[in-house]
């Protein structure tokens, strides 16, 4: 579903991403670990078409990602660390707007259903987003991904700052989406979440993918050790 071939990104003399090769199959959850500046967000930004690659190629469902390729954007959804929405609109109005932009015309009832699937309580969906907690905004972000029927989900530190309960709820939703065949690329610092949620785990350092592990084949302790070793090298 997602494929990176020798993906490289340079910002001036600095190489943010160095010859990245990666493949994420349908329904897989790939968790990217790495210290700040390791290249996780750059990878996601290239897949989303926000920035162009300096060299190499990124593919979503066989289609190459370029800045002006609208077709690949039909396939993706993105949940950043903080899902920022239109504060003066309600969660429902935000969802209606973004689903409309994606070309869908759902009824209010259908949109409510998506909101509830994403974990947002019915009583909250008509309140203004300015009154929402971070977790509630993340759920609206998930609902946006649901209405788009995205085949690939990109998450950038999605549970950062969420309380354990909200974080657990979030993980459950991602797992549900995975079961429905949605491929997920998630950048995170949360090793435990990566171990529990990811089907595969990558550890990046200085733009390169240093480890590409099957989640089932690595223990949490080993994962922690590997990660710390990488971070130590950086220090």
């Amino acid at each position, binding site marked *: 579903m997602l494929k990176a071939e020798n993906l490289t990104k340079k910002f001036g003399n600095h190489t943010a991403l160095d010859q990245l090769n990666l493949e994420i199959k349908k329904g897989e959850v790939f968790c990217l670990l790495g210290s700040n500046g390791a290249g996780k967000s750059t990878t996601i930004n290239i897949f*989303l078409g926000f920035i162009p690659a300096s060299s190499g190629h990124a593919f979503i469902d066989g289609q190459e990602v370029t800045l002006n390729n609208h*077709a690949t954007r039909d396939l993706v959804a993105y949940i950043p660390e903080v899902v920022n929405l239109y504060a003066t609109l309600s969660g429902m109005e935000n969802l209606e707007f973004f689903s409309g932009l994606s070309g869908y015309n759902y009824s209010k009832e259908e949109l409510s259903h998506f909101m509830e699937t994403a974990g947002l309580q019915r009583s909250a969906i008509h309140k203004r987003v300015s009154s929402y907690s971070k977790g509630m905004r993340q759920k609206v972000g998930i609902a946006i991904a649901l209405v788009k029927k995205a085949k690939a989900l990109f998450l950038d530190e999605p549970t950062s700052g969420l309380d354990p309960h909200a974080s657990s709820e979030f993980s459950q939703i991602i797992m549900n989406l995975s079961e429905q065949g949605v491929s997920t690329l998630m950048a995170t610092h949360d090793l435990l979440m990566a171990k529990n949620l990811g089907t595969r785990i990558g550890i990046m350092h200085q733009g390169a993918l240093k480890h590409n592990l099957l989640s089932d084949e690595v223990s949490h302790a080993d994962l922690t050790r590997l990660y710390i070793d990488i971070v130590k090298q950086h220090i």
Partner: protein
Amino acid sequence: MRLPLINILFRHELKILSRNRVLLSLSALIIFILVSALWIGSSMLRKQEQTIIKISQSEKESLDSLKTRIKRIEAHQMVYPGFIWDDPTFAYNTARNEGPNYAVKKPFPLQVLSIGQSDVQPFYYKVYINKKQYLTYESEIENSFLQFIGNFDFAFVVIYLFPLLIIVFSYNVLSAEKEQGTWVLLKTSNQSIAQMMICRMGIRYLLFTSFFWLIVIPVLMITIGGDALFTVNWTWIMAEVSLYFAFWFALALLVNSFSMTSNVNAMVLIFIWLFTGIIIPNLLQIGLNKVYPIPSRIDMLTAERDAINAYFEKDGQDLTKEVFSSPKSMIRQASVVTPGMVYGYGVIVYKSQEIKDQATAVAEEKLYGQIRKQQEGIRQLQLLSPALMMQERLSALAGSHWYQFNQFSMDTDRFRKKTQEFYYPKMADENTYRTFSIADADAIPKFNAKDYHDFSWLKIWQSFLIYLGIIILLLVSGYRRLLEARK
């Protein structure tokens, strides 16, 4: 772009704008100012209309009184018991006293929108035979103050205040998305950001302009009636104002396309507003005043008086001697004013008028010639400033432009000549100087009052198309830049 998407964006914009309290408060304030400006313009129009009604009544009363007195004198074998200079059967007396009629520029109803020159230029003159124009417009003294502070009217609100409101409406269409973080979600949609932004700006323009006319039209219907809204002038006013608003929205789109912060966008737009609306017009005014300095009105009057004095010191001496030595006038023998003396004054006024008019014409040419050159300069350079262009167009379409007042002034001058031609043969002829009859009173020339709302001299299409071109250029440039704005 598909229609449903425009519909989505339209509803979205409506929600976003209607929930922006700052914008709503500011809009309410500007609407209050707009309605106030229309009310002020309308009050001024009413005042002028009332003055014109009074003038008409005064003319009628004066004519009735004149005819009554002539009739009484004729009934008493031409004996007038009062002061001889008031005897209306002397053509010279009537020409000097109640005979002069008024030249009136009727206010065009759309003048409520643009006071223009209508507070500076007289809209009526009492036209005497012996002076170019008696300026009876009493507020002229206070007008210099009004000219200094500028007029508060619809045109002022539209030209200077509305661009500020448009800036508030449009300065952050793109930057706000980035600053509030919704930009990333928009970028992951499969829509073209450039099309989306141009569409949103277009929707804001349509909402803004529609709302504006929805307020203005009913207010005008109430204040000046619907007839004025079925004129070509009104159609052009709507087109010009809508184009002016489009210019500011298109400019805002271009500024947005540079992907700067909201603060920088606002500063850039306000600077452009200040530069094109205030600085350029002032620089042009200073420059044109340097190139074509306008002599003061006092210089004109002094020149006229000097010419008259010079005339009477030389050529006029013989005329005075001839007239007042004549047995007819019996000036030397008279211890009281005689009919011949009235005749003599009539002859002097008639014969000296030519030299007075020549002197006035030279002095006037100095004054009005320079004003004309300045106006021509402004007309050529106005494209540098949208505000200046709008001021010119709105005042012309409202019938309050300097050019239109100048047309009125020229018509007044022609009317004065017609009045002279009516009185001179009567007052400066030995056989007719005291034969002014009721029939003559009825034949005193009357001015054909008009509202001078013609604007064919303006070449309005030319500047309209130029500005339309500029707007298209701004939109295309903005669109091209926005294509790169996804980064």
